[in-house]
């Protein structure tokens, strides 16, 4: 049954590529996303029925609490992105478009290939979440890179090609390093075990510690490249800013989490082997480094889509930090992953709308959005408050939980740096976003701006749903959800 979660989008994706009929492709996308959501809910119900064992499935494919968390996030975001995509393709497909930044004309990728790759992207990300074997996990993560590269070059021009090239090469090199980590893990297991998570965790005490440390380091650098941890993040701002907005949503909200799952699996094995401090401290170090560097780049940023990309690097840093600290902070990190994906999805969709109407990615040229695009302007403002961790949104709660976890373990220096980085990012993003929403336009620009474009439902509906999700998480976390997140946090610790 679990295999359906992977096979359904994979088969539909291949079908969409083979049969290039316009209406069929969009229909397949709708069926694929809805069907995926349904199978995931079904699997979640099956998993929640269990009391004794932590996971369902076999030695290769299985579902545990952390896997279900990331799978659920992926599925919800994909459904939102699918609605957006169907509307977006209706507007963009088959046309020659004038470039927003430089004014040249370019064509778009064939729709059949785009939809096919999107569905395959969903299939490979699901496989990452379902893998119970480090080798299979590696194959799946590498496959996500390959099927998502054509998504970045939907707009066929030189900037998107540059971004796709960097993405392909840097991530492939990174993931080759993760493969080295896998082989090191096999050396640690004296070459006898196949790299199943369960057998590795059960036999953790007998693993060779020297090789195990080397293996985690390689997994962290390898999957960290894909996750966007500083200093391996260089592909991320380019890919996120050049891809169409719903692809940025999927990259930022779903793909980065999936890469993080690879690191979490390694961390779980080290924790089970009694070396959780080693891997935890590395995660804290890279987490803080990512947050601080993201803050520096957001302060200097003029492009609002790149600003969102650097914000993703910041939040991946927070996730690594929370998991590294352990205890309560780890549960906080699980909640953070959920709220960040919802919020960032909404923000990228708003950014796509702003880009379409204002024809620029430079924040300084977008003014008075609340007047010209009342709904987008409002969502953009709410999204800014949410992503910077202001109440009453979900990220406020999760960032506070991580802070509490840091203080509870007496890590004062870490907590201080964490707060300084969060504060700096709040101020820097306020300086970029508030003038975009409230600022008065130049008089001559104002005259040209009289037209108020219609805000289409295909964009507004998914963005609103994602936004409401993060708002609800900030106001009320159901006890069942909290218990589920705690269980996910516990299972990362190798139990």
């Amino acid at each position, binding site marked *: 049954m679990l295999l359906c979660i992977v096979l359904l989008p994979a088969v539909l994706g291949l079908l969409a590529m083979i049969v290039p009929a316009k209406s069929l492709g969009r229909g397949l996308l709708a069926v694929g996303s809805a069907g995926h959501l349904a199978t995931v809910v079904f699997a979640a119900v099956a998993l929640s029925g269990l009391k004794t064992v932590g996971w369902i499935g076999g030695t*290769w494919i299985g579902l545990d609490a952390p896997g279900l968390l990331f799978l659920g996030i992926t599925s919800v975001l994909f459904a939102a992105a699918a609605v957006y995509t169907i509307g977006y393709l209706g507007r963009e497909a088959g046309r020659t478009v004038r470039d927003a930044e430089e004014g040249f004309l370019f064509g778009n990728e064939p729709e059949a290939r785009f939809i096919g790759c999107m569905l395959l992207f969903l299939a490979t990300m699901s496989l990452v979440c379902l893998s119970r*074997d480090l*080798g*299979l996990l*590696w*194959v799946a993560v*590498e*496959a996500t*890179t*390959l099927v998502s*590269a*054509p998504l970045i*070059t939907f707009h*066929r*021009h*030189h*900037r998107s*090609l*540059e*971004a*796709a*090239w*960097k993405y*392909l*090469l840097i991530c*492939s*090199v990174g993931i*080759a*390093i993760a*493969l*080295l980590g896998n*082989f*090191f893990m*096999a*050396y640690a297991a004296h*070459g*006898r075990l*196949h*790299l199943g998570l369960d057998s590795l965790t059960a036999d953790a005490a007998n693993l*060779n510690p*020297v*090789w195990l440390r*080397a293996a985690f380091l390689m997994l962290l650098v390898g999957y960290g490249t894909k996750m966007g941890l500083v200093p391996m993040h260089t592909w991320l*701002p*380019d890919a996120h*800013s*050049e891809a169409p907005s719903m692809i940025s949503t999927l990259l930022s909200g779903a793909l980065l989490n999936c890469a993080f799952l690879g690191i979490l699996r390694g961390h779980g094995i080290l924790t089970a082997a009694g070396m959780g401090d080693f891997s935890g401290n590395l995660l804290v170090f890279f987490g803080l480094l990512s947050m601080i560097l993201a803050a520096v*780049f957001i302060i*200097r*940023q003029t492009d609002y889509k*790149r600003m969102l990309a650097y914000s993703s690097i910041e939040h991946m840093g927070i996730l690594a930090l929370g998991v590294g600290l352990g205890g309560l902070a780890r549960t906080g990190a699980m909640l953070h992953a959920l709220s960040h994906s919802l919020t960032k999805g909404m923000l990228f969709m708003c950014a796509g709308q702003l880009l379409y109407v204002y024809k620029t990615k430079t924040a300084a040229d977008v003014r008075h959005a609340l007047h010209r695009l009342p709904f987008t302007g409002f969502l953009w403002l709410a999204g800014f408050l949410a992503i910077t961790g202001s109440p009453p949104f979900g990220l406020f709660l999760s960032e506070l939980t991580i802070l509490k976890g840091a203080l509870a373990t007496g890590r004062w220096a870490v907590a201080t740096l964490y707060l300084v980085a969060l504060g700096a990012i709040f101020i820097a993003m306020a300086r970029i976003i508030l003038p975009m929403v409230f600022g008065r336009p130049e008089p001559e620009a104002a005259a040209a701006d009289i037209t108020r474009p219609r805000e289409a439902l295909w964009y507004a509906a998914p963005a609103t749903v994602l936004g409401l999700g993060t708002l609800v998480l900030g106001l009320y976390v159901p006890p069942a959800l909290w218990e589920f997140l705690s269980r996910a946090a516990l299972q990362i610790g190798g139990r």
Partner: protein
Amino acid sequence: MTIWTDLLILGLVLTNFRLLASSRLLALINTMMLQALALSFIPLSLAGGSISIRLLVLVGATLAVKGGLLPWLLRRAMREVDVQREIEPFLGFSSSVLVGIAVLGLSFIITRPLAEATASLSGFLLPGALFTTLTGLLIIVSRRKALTQVIGYLVMENGVYAFGAALAVEQPLLVEMGILLDVFVAVFVMGITIYQISREFDHIDTDRLSELKD
């Protein structure tokens, strides 16, 4: 038969130096093919007498993908974008070889604690594999042409694979096949992207892809 293993690893090291020293893309591709040949036989030499069918399948698949399909794809890409040689790399060819010698020494030093933890292996396997991995990285960062960078990626992948070769006796076949498939598709997708880049820009010099930065 450690003597065979050591000879094959010597083959890896020598091909690495040739990869660092040559500028012609065709020579690079041919050398890579030679390296793949040496690489695919390492698991066989390590297995000693116990040769199973799945081991033979693995050796055959490695030979077919790394020694046959990938060089073919690269040659095709080379013809399509009409690039013959790497001109003016960031790090000159003779300097590359000198750096390569230093990296080889470094590989021996780095792998010493790991080799001590795994006494059963040939003493040259770990340094040889690490040297190949680092040579690939060196090629990626020091060359301009996108195609040369793909070759660097494949050399790096060869190095990683050499680490795995010692384990090929025990690793599940499914995973090994998945790895080979992924590498093949990676080069396929990279090839398409290079073709698009050359059509859009009239060159494949990656240092001139520099519009996106902060």
